[in-house]
């Protein structure tokens, strides 16, 4: 147990609680709760988006993926840059012009409100829950290894903090926690890179040579970091994983929601640009320095192995172990706290997106037909947050030990096959009908969940069966094809005369 790490952890929690208390005094209306009153600047929002996006899967999961599977981790890191490019060139202007609190506000401009809000709330909840589960798994492993406390208790602690941030402080607290985390992560990862390179006397070749030797000696795969093959992906699996990651990020409610917090389209563009720059910087450091150093310094090193010969705390912990080697106990504590702050910030954003789906889309818009009092709506948000906390604990316990990057790909598969087709067709294809949207959305959701349950991640790893029913662990491509196909097909069958010649959505006009 590291007392420095504990101190850093407590400092992070204290800072975030102060931010939450500050925000609570400024959160009065529904607009304040959901989108911070639209008063966030472009640069602030860009940092918040970066903070919201760079979850446990970035720092912990990507490093772990490089450690175990080498070059193939490139699919994960590159997906984020494609997603942000798509955001910037295709979506930011329309999102800011057409949306109010959630992306569903855009869908219902031309489609029937009640069934669409219910469907989109369901898909947003499922994808947010799965994404939340990932963060909690990462946080649980982190707290377990640092404090030596039981994984289950760690999961409960993170869920409790999550409920506190969102129910008390809303979007304003979430935004500032994400900004603080982004700054901590950028600073921490830069320091980690400098210390790591200094450890090797700034000799890249020496670092890569040692990693190469360790991969040869302990895995029998000397070229793991240079050559594809670590994940053993066939063509369909590679495409399914890659496209699922890109379009899943684009369809993620917690990222989409961030574009409603800025005052205008230019600020929305600046947000995407700043976020993309920060994410690119962090990704490059992890891919070319930290991940390689993890192999060079940890693979086969008995000081970091547990009794069974695996990495202490699981492979998700290799990034913090690298920090210990290159920076000692103090830096280990700092990076563990940064990783924890990373998780807390994303958890807050995801929770707010899920809760907004319940309180704004279902309660206020459908059940109360747009006549809900603001106080009631915010109250429902807070109650929903508590219920969500319980669900997240259960999921976190079920998926203990799984690689967090892989789990994120599953969560993103849901968003890629449901939210993304709904949003992109609603924005750019006037022929989309309510029936098409509903049938396609349900198809995407059911297909993704079914293939996920029948695949290796659940059928084998969680349920303990010998072999999966669906052989691929990457369902996104199949679910996306099904979703788009049904959405377009049913829309063509149910279209009204003249709808095909209508203009795409612009400035809120239907």
């Amino acid at each position: 147990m590291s007392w420095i790490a504990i101190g850093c952890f407590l400092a992070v929690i204290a800072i975030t609680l102060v931010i939450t208390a500050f925000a609570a005094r400024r959160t009065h209306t529904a607009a304040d709760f959901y989108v911070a009153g639209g008063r966030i600047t472009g640069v602030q929002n860009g940092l918040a988006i970066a903070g919201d996006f760079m979850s446990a899967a970035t720092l912990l999961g990507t490093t772990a993926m490089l450690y175990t599977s080498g070059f193939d981790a490139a699919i994960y890191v590159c997906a984020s840059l494609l997603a942000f490019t798509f955001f910037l060139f295709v979506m930011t202007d329309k999102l800011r012009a057409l949306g109010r609190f959630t992306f569903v506000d855009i869908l219902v401009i031309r489609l029937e409100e009640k069934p669409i809000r219910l469907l989109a709330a369901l898909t947003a909840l499922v994808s947010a829950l799965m994404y939340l589960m990932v963060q909690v798994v990462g946080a649980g492993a982190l707290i377990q290894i640092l404090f030596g406390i039981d994984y289950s208790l760690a999961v409960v602690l993170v869920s409790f903090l999550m409920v506190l941030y969102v129910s008390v402080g809303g979007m304003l607290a979430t935004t500032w926690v994400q900004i603080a985390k982004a700054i901590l992560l950028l600073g921490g990862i830069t320091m980690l890179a400098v210390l790591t390179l200094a450890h090797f006397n700034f000799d890249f070749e020496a670092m890569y040579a040692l990693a190469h030797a360790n991969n040869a000696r302990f895995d029998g795969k000397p070229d793991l970091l240079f050559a594809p093959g670590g994940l053993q992906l066939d063509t369909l699996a590679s495409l399914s994983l890659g496209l699922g990651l890109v379009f899943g990020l684009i369809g993620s409610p917690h990222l989409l929601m961030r574009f409603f917090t800025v005052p205008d389209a230019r600020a929305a563009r600046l947000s995407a640009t700043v976020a993309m720059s920060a994410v690119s910087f962090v990704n490059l450091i992890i891919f070319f320095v930290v991940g390689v150093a993890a192999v060079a310094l940890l693979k086969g090193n008995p000081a970091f192995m547990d009794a069974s010969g695996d990495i202490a705390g699981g492979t998700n912990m290799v990034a913090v172990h690298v920090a210990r080697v290159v920076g000692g106990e103090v830096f280990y504590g700092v990076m563990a706290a940064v990783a924890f702050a990373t998780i807390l910030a994303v958890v807050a954003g995801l929770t707010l997106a899920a809760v907004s789906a319940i309180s704004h889309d279902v309660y206020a818009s459908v059940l109360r037909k747009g006549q809900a009092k603001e106080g009631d709506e915010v109250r429902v948000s807070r109650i929903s947050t508590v219920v969500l906390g319980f669900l997240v604990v259960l999921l976190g316990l079920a998926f203990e030990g799984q690689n967090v990057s892989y789990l994120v790909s599953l969560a993103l598969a849901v968003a890629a096959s449901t939210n993304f087709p709904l949003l992109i067709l609603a924005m750019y294809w006037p022929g989309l009908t309510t029936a098409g949207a509903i049938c396609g959305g349900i198809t995407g959701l059911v297909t993704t969940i079914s293939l996920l349950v029948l695949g290796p991640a659940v059928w084998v790893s969680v349920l303990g069966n010998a072999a999966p029913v669906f052989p691929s662990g990457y369902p996104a491509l199949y679910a996306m094809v099904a979703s788009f196909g049904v959405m377009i097909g049913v829309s063509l069958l149910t279209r009204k005369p003249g709808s095909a010649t209508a203009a795409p959505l612009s400035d809120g006009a239907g």
Partner: protein
Amino acid sequence: MAPISLGAKLALGFFLTLYFILLLGIALTPDALRTPVALGLTAGHWLVLAIHVLPVVAAWLYMGREP
């Protein structure tokens, strides 16, 4: 709102193409990606660098456009 410009469409298409090259290269032509190119890095590494640097440059240039 202005429609998506031709430049933005071309840029997006180019970056998507780079990503498809990565995805298909990993599955179909791993030897091509592992080929050393320059500075001790392979073709795959340079592809990852391109996917991370070029979109950021394009984004900041795009920011100059009025919405």
